[in-house]
Every structure is written in structure tokens, then in C-alpha cells.
């Protein structure tokens, strides 16, 4: 990166908040996504919207790409740098500015860790439900920019459902605020909805106002085991059809169960074909009743065994273990290509079956887990990026899975975002004029195309 640009950035921030040495930059050349890497020109650590604004003005004047990053746990390459770009790393903007128990809101800076938000809410008996797998380290800004989901999506929805307002630095450096603490607000376009899930391509989110809920009084976690994955899928469909909306319905296949157990050592049954983690929360009476019904339905649909967590500690262990599924799969092979296809729930069994069939046809090793209650599957190809032939087969298998997903009315990504990883599939799901409108929005808000260029679409 040119010396005069670095000098300007140093003036805008402080010299010790800009990294330029190769050893400092290499660790920022990737995010949580497999097999994607590109070297930034520098990494800066702004500490306020004003400083971000100054950076964007410098970048805008020279048309230098700016890639925003939190903890770098994204799974679609959204924060992988563009060659020689400025990486805006926002982890130092990490203060919770307000918890308002009277309006049930929380105001946080963009770099606050997701789990810290729920912890702060819990101190007031409140609850921030979205819980992506990486919640112990992911930042709220990243969650909003990717519209992250999590294990509780089935009942509580995703990040979007909890964002009431936000501060955004626009591409030209202007600082805008959208939203407020009102439950109802129909003044103007819902601009905040535009920035949620925009993957750093429309503006830089610097502060978010979040909606909180009362913390559920009770919860019950159960583990159902199956001899076939289809039975697990049928159980999920039956629970939904019985008009029960549990907090989560998560499943793991055998490969995933074994990897997770190898890591967590919590006594998961490793001989079964599939495992369903079911959780219900809310009023104690309702929880007891729903738990009973769910266990019955599981039994009627082929569950070999249904185990109820003895206490809160065991329930937490089970959910935590489930959150490590993706990373634990790397125990089998060094490269894990993670999919995020999501289908309407009545197509779930069909999709699970199809994924296994494709993997078998290409002789590929996969582990599948995911949010079955949401129809959100994470088939994960266990491979080695150095094996060219196999990587080619993975590509082909992915193409087939995506094509079928779209065919049955699903989406190419349920919660990880498009980024770089799913970019080539976006045009399959969006046809003109929808895709054209997406691009028009981008042009309008970022005419110089400096904000995370080349992500979502070219």
C-alpha cells in the first residue's frame, strides 16, 4: 500500500492502530471460511464512527477497497480481504453502552462479543436469543452484517428480528442513524433492514440497538437417537405439524456425532445414525407438556431412545457440544467445505436423502448437521484443499445440491451469507429484475464501489 495513504491513515487514527508489517497482515488474510485467502494492504483499528468516517473518506478519494472485519469467524468469505485493501477491524469498539430494562433494549458498539450481549441481558433477567455457533467470539456487528442465525432460530428467529436501530457510516463518510426504541415505527423505508445482512457492502455498522425478551423461566433439553437420518427428519416434520414450536431442533449425523464426542467427551452415543437435540423453553407447565409430546412423537417416528438432560449443566453441555460441530469435523480431514442450504421444512427428508445420494455418487466424505427445525442444513465436505481432483468433485457435488435446493424452493444460504463462497450461485436464485435491483442499490449507496467489493455479486 502506498506510503502517502498510510500516512493519511496514521493522521486520522494513531500510528499504533495501523498494521502494515507482513507478519501482522498474514493473520488477517483469511476469515473462518476454508480455502480462501488474500493479503490486505493494511489493517486499521478505529475506535469510533468518526474515525471510520475519516478512513472511508481517505479510501473513497483514492478508490481503495475497504473490508470490514470483526473476529473473522464468517463462513462465506465475507471478511476475506480484497488484495491490497484496507481492513477495518472493529473489535476494539467493544462497549455495551446501555441496557434499558424498561424498554427491553440494549445498545452496543459493533465489536461487542455476541455472548457478552446475552450475559449483560441476563443480569437484568433478560434474554438475547440469537446464538450463532461462534457466539463466544463473534461480534454483534458481524452478526448484523451477516444476519446470523443460530440454534434457537426455530422459535426465536434470527438476528434481524432483534435489531431495532443502528448507526451506520455510509460510503461517503456520512454517519447516519436508523430506528429507535419504539415497537412500532413505519416512518419512511425500513433502512435498517437494508443494512442487516448487507455483508459490509452498503455501509459500516458501528452501533446497534437490540431488542431483548424476558428470560425463559424453564427449559428442557432432550436427545433422541435414530437408526436412520430420515427418521430424524420425519420426527421434525411431525413435531412442526403437531403445531409445536420448540426452541431448537438440531441434528447431527454419525460422522459429526463421532467428531463432536471425540472433542467434547460428554458421552454422546457414537453408534447411532443420527441424533436429534430438542429443546423447549418458556413457562414451566408449557415446557413440561411440550417436552412430553415431543418425546412421544420422537418415539412414534423411529427414535431408538429419548434421553432428557438431568439438569441445566447437562443441557448447556449438550448445546455447547452441538455448537462445536463444524470445527470438530476438521478432525477427519484438514479442509471442511461447509454448505448452508435451506429448504422449506416439508422438503427436509427429501433433501437429506438427496445430499447423501450425491455424496455417495461422487465418493465424497461428508458430515451433515444443522438446524433441522429451520430446514437449514450444513452438509460439510471433508476433504483436503491440496487434492485437486477431489476438490473438483466437491465443486460438482455442490452444484448439484444447490440446483436441487433452488428447485424445491429453498435458498443457497440460510445464515452464513453469500460473500465469496456462494457468489456464483446467487444468479441461480435471483433472476432479473430482482438481481438488477440488488446491484442498483449497491451502486446508489456505494457509487465508487469501495465497500467490500466483489462480495455477494461482481
Amino acid at each position, binding site marked *: 500500500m502506498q506510503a502517502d495513504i498510510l500516512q493519511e491513515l496514521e493522521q486520522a487514527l494513531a500510528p499504533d492502530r495501523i*498494521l502494515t*508489517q*507482513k*507478519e*501482522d497482515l*498474514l*493473520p*488477517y*488474510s*483469511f*476469515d*473462518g471460511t*476454508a480455502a480462501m485467502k488474500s493479503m490486505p494492504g493494511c489493517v486499521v*483499528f478505529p475506535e469510533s464512527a468518526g474515525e471510520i468516517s475519516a478512513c472511508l473518506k481517505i479510501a473513497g478519494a483514492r478508490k481503495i477497497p475497504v473490508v470490514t472485519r470483526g*473476529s*473473522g*469467524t464468517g463462513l462465506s468469505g465475507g471478511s476475506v480481504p480484497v488484495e491490497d485493501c484496507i481492513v477495518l477491524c472493529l*473489535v*476494539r469498539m467493544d462497549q455495551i453502552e446501555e441496557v434499558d430494562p424498561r424498554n427491553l433494549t440494549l445498545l452496543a458498539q459493533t465489536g461487542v*462479543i455476541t455472548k457478552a450481549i446475552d450475559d449483560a441481558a441476563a443480569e437484568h433477567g433478560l434474554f438475547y436469543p440469537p446464538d450463532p455457533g*461462534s457466539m*463466544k*467470539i463473534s461480534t454483534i456487528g458481524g452478526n448484523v452484517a451477516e444476519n446470523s442465525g443460530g440454534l434457537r432460530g426455530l422459535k426465536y428467529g434470527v438476528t434481524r428480528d432483534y435489531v431495532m436501530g443502528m448507526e451506520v457510516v455510509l460510503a461517503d463518510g456520512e454517519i447516519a442513524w436508523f430506528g429507535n426504541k419504539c415497537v412500532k415505527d413505519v416512518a419512511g423505508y425500513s433502512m435498517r433492514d437494508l443494512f442487516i445482512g448487507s455483508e459490509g457492502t452498503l455501509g459500516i455498522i458501528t452501533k446497534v440497538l437490540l431488542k431483548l425478551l424476558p428470560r425463559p423461566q424453564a427449559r428442557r433439553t432432550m436427545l433422541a437417537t435414530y437408526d436412520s437420518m430420515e427418521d430424524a427428519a420425519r420426527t421434525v416434520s411431525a413435531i412442526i405439524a403437531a403445531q409445536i414450536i420448540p426452541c431448537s431442533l438440531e441434528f447431527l449425523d454419525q460422522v459429526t456425532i463421532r*467428531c*463432536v464426542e*471425540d*472433542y*467434547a467427551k460428554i458421552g454422546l452415543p457414537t453408534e447411532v445414525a443420527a441424533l436429534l437435540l430438542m429443546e423447549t423453553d418458556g413457562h414451566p407447565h408449557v415446557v413440561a407438556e411440550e417436552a412430553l409430546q415431543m418425546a412421544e412423537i420422537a418415539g412414534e417416528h423411529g427414535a431408538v431412545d429419548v434421553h432428557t438432560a438431568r439438569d441445566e449443566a447437562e443441557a448447556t453441555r449438550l448445546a455447547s457440544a452441538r455448537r*462445536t460441530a*463444524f*470445527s*470438530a*469435523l*476438521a*478432525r477427519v480431514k*484438514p479442509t*471442511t467445505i461447509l454448505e448452508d442450504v435451506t429448504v422449506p421444512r416439508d422438503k427436509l427428508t427429501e433433501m437429506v436423502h438427496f445430499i447423501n445420494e450425491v455424496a455417495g455418487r461422487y465418493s465424497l466424505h461428508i458430515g451433515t448437521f444443522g438446524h433441522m427445525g429451520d430446514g437449514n442444513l450444513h452438509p460439510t465436505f471433508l476433504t483436503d484443499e491440496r487434492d485437486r481432483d477431489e476438490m473438483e468433485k466437491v465443486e460438482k457435488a455442490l452444484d448439484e445440491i444447490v440446483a436441487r435446493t433452488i428447485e424445491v424452493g429453498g435458498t443457497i444460504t440460510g445464515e452464513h451469507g453469500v460473500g465469496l463462497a456462494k457468489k456464483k450461485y446467487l444468479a441461480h436464485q435471483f433472476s432479473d429484475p430482482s438481481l438488477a435491483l440488488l446491484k442498483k442499490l449497491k451502486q446508489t449507496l456505494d457509487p465508487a464501489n469501495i465497500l467490500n467489493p466483489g462480495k455477494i455479486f461482481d
Partner: protein
Amino acid sequence: MHCGMCLPTCPTYAETKNEKNSPRGRISLMRAIADGELDVSRAFADEMYYCLGCLACETACPAGVDYTGLFEASRAEIEAAEVLASPGRSFWRRVTLDFLFLHPRLFHFAARLLRFYQRTGLRKCVRGSGLLMLAPKRLRALEPLAPEISRRFSQQLIAPVERPRSGKPRFCVAMLTGCVQDVAFARLNRDTVEVLLANGCEVMTPRLQPCCGSLHAHNGELDQARVLARRNIDLYHLDSLDAIISNAGGCGSHLRKYGHLLKDDPDYAQKAKQWDDKLRDIHEWLAEIGFRKPSQDSAVPETNSVTYHESCHLCHGQKISREPRMILESLPGVDFVELPESNWCCGSAGIYNITQPEQSAKLQERKIRHIRGTRASAVAMANPGCHIQIEHGLAETGIVVTSPVSLLAEAYRRECRGDG
């Protein structure tokens, strides 16, 4: 896999929030070197010595990345490339790694000298006179951190073979006395033997045991570490032992990986594997053989509430976390209090408090704050480095620094005496 699950558990990343100072960042640099994109540079070397080697990342890693292996190999490459070499650094490395920690007699002699300095009034004299200012910087930094050397070392307190007072021994075990543990915490070694005897173990304790080599392995001298591993293995007839007992978290973590260290040595690979199979941390062993709980009337009043600090290499390196707590909870009259962030490094980290005093002090302060917050009258731990670091931090607070094994031994002793 680079999911970032290790980041929230890394003490240096928590301090700087700079990826380079995280396990994921360090591994990316190692990979860049392996792929020929980066040379073994000064900046890389500095980073690898900024890492505590606490291994919290290994516990956090769902993918099972062997950070210990990567860490040791990196430091070895750094030493081979000599990017950090300076006359002063080389001198101190030679004195410690090539002499003191390679030759137990020399080590004992040095410890005797240190005790002479500490006990004869020489220390007061030196400190008072400002003479210390003339000493090299490293020695000056080291002086106040040096542990108080015991009057008698392990070999004066423990006979080469000891048998339980009554009954036929249930097990035959070897007792590893360590280096710092041997001269500064000989009492704890004695306590360990007593606890073993009280639980039916016949204890073999060879004199003049060599260092386990962990200091060498962590500081890039893997060949010396191998020499020491072989010497240790040669001391025992492994077939006749049920277990080899280590009571220092840092040593134990290294000791149970001799198999890996010597895997390419045709003469020792098999023996090293057998060694690993028999190596037990004392707490682990006591839990495994079902240690006897002391009777109700053996309570020790000074330690009526105890908290527990986990040595990194015991909990992360050896994954032993539950067993020391089981021992503490078994003690009569003791209220066991959990320590917040109990498995967060205290900043001792081998010789980190000498090489990185600033970061070490921050971690020490964080640890002390948590210990004081529990309002416990004692804090137990099982690693000499942590013991020294935390004892310094707690000076003048009146909080007792001890170990689970010492507390158990004391409870057994009180049973015999019939007081309490």
C-alpha cells in the same frame, strides 16, 4: 480449519485483540513459513516468545489441533535460524539449558549457593547496598522472583524406597521429584510420598533425578530434551512399575509426551511409549485408585476455605481438572470455593515472567484479583511456577498458597496425631 474458537481463550489475544497475538494468527504465520511465503523472521520469533505456551487454545480447539507440537517445533526453528541470537541471550541460555538444567549435581550446588545467599543476610546486604544494580539486567529481574530454597532437598526427605507402614503394598510407583520442585518445594514432594504411602503405594524415588526436559523443549532445544528423556527412562525398570508419578503440572504435561519426542529413536520408541502409558499426575492417580478420604476430625483451621488455581499444563496440557477438586472437596472442614477464570494463565508460564515481565505482571494481577475476590483463606495449585508467581502476588495478604496434595497429607497427619 481456522474457525477462531481459540481466540476467546487466549490471554495474549485478550490483551491486544491483534490476530497475530492469537493461536490462529500464530498458526497462520507457521503455515506461511511452511509454504515458503515467509522467512523465520525476527517478528515471528518475537511473537512465538510472546506466546505463553499455556495451551488454553488446545482445550478450546474442537478440531484437535496439536498446538504444543507446532509451538515447540516453531521455537526450535527460531533457535536454529538464530534470529534472536545475542551474546547475552546465548550466555544465559547456555548457563541454564546446557548446564544447570542438564546436570542435577550442578543444579543442587547452584541451589545451595542461592540458599546461602538468601539465608545468611547476604541478600539483605546486597539489596540494601544497591549492589544489585551492578548485576546484569536479567539477573536483577530474576533475583526477587527466585524461589526460597528449602533447607533440605527431596533426597534428604525421601528414602530411595519407601513402603506403606502396614499391609502389603497395592501398587508400586515411581516418584518424580522435578528440579525446582526438588529444591524449593521438597516438602511438597515429601507430602506426595506420604499420600501415596497412605494409599497403599510402595514408592521408588531415585536420587539425583535429571530434569524432565520441558524447559528445553519449550525453548527450542528438542535434542537436549531427548537426551533428558532417555536419562529419565533409563532410571527405571518400567515393567515393575504400576505408575510413574509427577506432581508438577508443567513437568507432567511434557513427561507424558516422551513417546512423541522419541518416536524416531529405534532404541527408545517402545520404552517411551510404555513410559507414557504409566505416567500419571498425582491427582489423576489418586482418583484412579480411589484415594481414602480423611476422617472428619482432621480439619485444619488455617485453611477452612480453599479455592483452586489450575496450572495451565495440568488442565490444558494434561486435561486434569476434576481430580484436584475432588481432593479438595474430600477435605473435612474445608469449604471449597470456585475461582473465576481458574484455568486462565497466571503469567508464570515457565520463564515467561523473566522474558516478558510486563505481560506476566498483567496476568498475575488479574489472577490475584480473582483469588482475593473469592475471600478464601487459601489457594491451592499444583505447579511450582504458579506457586512462586502467585505467592509473590499475594505477599502480605495472609492468603495461604498451598497444594491439594499438601492439604490432604496434613489431614492424614492430623488423623494419626488425633488432633484437629
